[in-house]
């Protein structure tokens, strides 16, 4: 019997094997490209904004003089807006998810709502700004206020929260529900005391990621009318305000490089907030990830 001639195989396969190696490195480079860009971006921003990071930067309001400018109004404004966005988005997002997963019949109307949610997820954020400007600012006459901005943001992240909550509720095993019904619990008792507590880690993880997206969102709030020059703290839900991304945009779009350094300092603060939120989400996921 004639065995396979290794040399001949090498000769015939050689080119293909080289091709394989070459393309493997090309694909690796494509992967590394993003990581390198991320590295450069982080490095640039930290070296540029580092010197402006001080207690004053936190305690000062916006100013025409870069050395006096701070992020206080924007930071507090972001907290106020999120204070409206988070409860509104959670109530409507989780409510929608419970309805779709536990109550809705599999009919055309349910499919319509479902399709509608996935289409909303693809609508550009600036269009949500136009919605907020017309409906909340003008129609409901909330003005260019924290309340109008918070509602707009809540609608923007609603689809993300609905989808995350739906997945989490769907992952609750049927036996838990059946056991609860078997003990004589009603449907709502089962949902409220069995399904929701089991699904909450997943809901929270998805929601926190959605909130962190809202913290960095700029375009819709510019359209709704957040101001960049704010030299006071908000005194209520109908107060005018600014948020961190808009303050950063304002600084970045000026020609003087000192303001660019300020923008970089603002971005560092924004990054820290986002990293904290993401870490919390990951911790929740790790602590409560249970398999049934």
């Amino acid at each position, binding site marked *: 019997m004639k065995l396979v001639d290794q040399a001949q195989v090498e000769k015939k396969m050689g080119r293909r094997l080289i091709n394989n190696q070459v393309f493997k490195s090309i694909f690796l480079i494509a992967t590394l490209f993003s990581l390198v860009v991320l590295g450069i971006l982080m490095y640039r921003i930290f070296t540029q904004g580092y010197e402006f990071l001080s207690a004053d930067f936190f305690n000062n309001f916006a100013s025409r003089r870069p050395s006096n400018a701070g992020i206080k109004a924007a930071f507090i404004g972001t907290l106020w807006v999120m204070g409206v966005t988070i409860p509104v988005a959670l109530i409507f997002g989780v409510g929608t998810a419970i309805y779709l997963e536990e109550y809705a019949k599999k009919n055309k109307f349910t499919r319509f709502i479902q399709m509608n949610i996935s289409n909303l997820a693809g609508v550009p954020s*600036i269009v949500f700004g136009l*919605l907020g400007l017309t409906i909340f600012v003008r129609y409901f006459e909330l003005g260019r206020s924290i309340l109008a901005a918070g509602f707009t943001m809540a609608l923007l992240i609603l689809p993300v929260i609905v989808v995350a909550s739906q997945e989490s509720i769907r992952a609750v095993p049927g036996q838990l529900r059946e056991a609860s019904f078997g003990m004589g619990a009603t449907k709502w008792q089962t949902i409220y005391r069995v399904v929701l507590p089991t699904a909450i880690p997943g809901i929270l993880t998805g929601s926190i990621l959605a909130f962190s997206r809202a913290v*960095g969102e700029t375009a819709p709030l510019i*359209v709704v009318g957040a101001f960049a020059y704010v030299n006071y703290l908000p005194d209520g839900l109908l107060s005018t305000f600014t948020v961190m991304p808009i303050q950063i*945009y304002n600084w*970045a779009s000026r020609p003087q490089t000192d303001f660019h350094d300020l923008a970089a300092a603002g971005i560092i603060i924004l990054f820290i907030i986002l990293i904290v939120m993401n870490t919390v989400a990951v911790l929740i996921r790790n602590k409560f990830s249970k398999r049934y």
Partner: protein
Amino acid sequence: MAMSSGQSIRDLIKEKKAKNSSGRLVEKAVPVILLLTAIVSVLTTLGILYTLIVETVIFFSQVPFIEFITKTEWLPFASGDENKVYGISALVSGTLLVTLIATIVAVPFGLGAAIYLSEYASDRVRRIVKPILEILAGIPTIVYGFFALTFVTPLLQKLIPDLPFFNALSPGIVVGIMIIPMIASLSDDAMSSVPNAIREGALALGATKFELAIKIILPAAISGVVASFVLGISRAIGETMIVTLAGGSNPNFTFNPTETIQTMTSYIVQASTGDAGFGTTQYYSIYAVGMTLFVFTLLMNILAQYISRRFREEY
């Protein structure tokens, strides 16, 4: 038990139900309340459509539709009413130019990264790289815009000396970088879901990993991969802050990437930061532009859904 007093089980159940009447009210009310919360998302869509359509109709009562789609100049802030021109193609060309550059950047890098992650990378590498891609996807667009303005543009100006400070190239490249993680992640999911039996079959027949990836896995996952491209492009069309910061605000009917441009989204930002007073034609024009943008992205999203449903391979 209670049976001794002559009650049947049936009576007991009745008694219990009577006691729980408040509980039954909750049982009836909760689905209704939850249905109302679900309807909010439908109302949001209706709100968007209503807003855009009503204000766009007002806009077209002041500016002829023919002018809107045929003129190639967009001069809403020209002095004197007769000098104002509303030709959307100046903004659309800027948007498409940025989107095209972004696609040229994002598709090869995104697809390359996806092939590497799904076919070559070890489990450990995947576990490290995927979260880092998620970080990139979570960076606010204002940060990318700042990066485009303060790093990419000066870098490009060294390579192309007469490049203006605001141009289409720099935001295009950065929008591309922004959508790489989306394309990489969705394409990786699509390719990873091709069953291993197919991989083993191809390898057993003597295919190299490269041939396996290109000739077997990629065709098998093509619906998910193409859908990820379309979604990425749709995201690029609607992107706002990067193009506003680095693209400039000079509506220009051009397909030359080194020129200053304005996109649909950056016009909306410009007009709503104070240039357009309520009730003026400029004010209504942001809705007409928003409507055009909405139609573009809606078509892309429907196309993506259609592709992933129509061409899905079942194993």
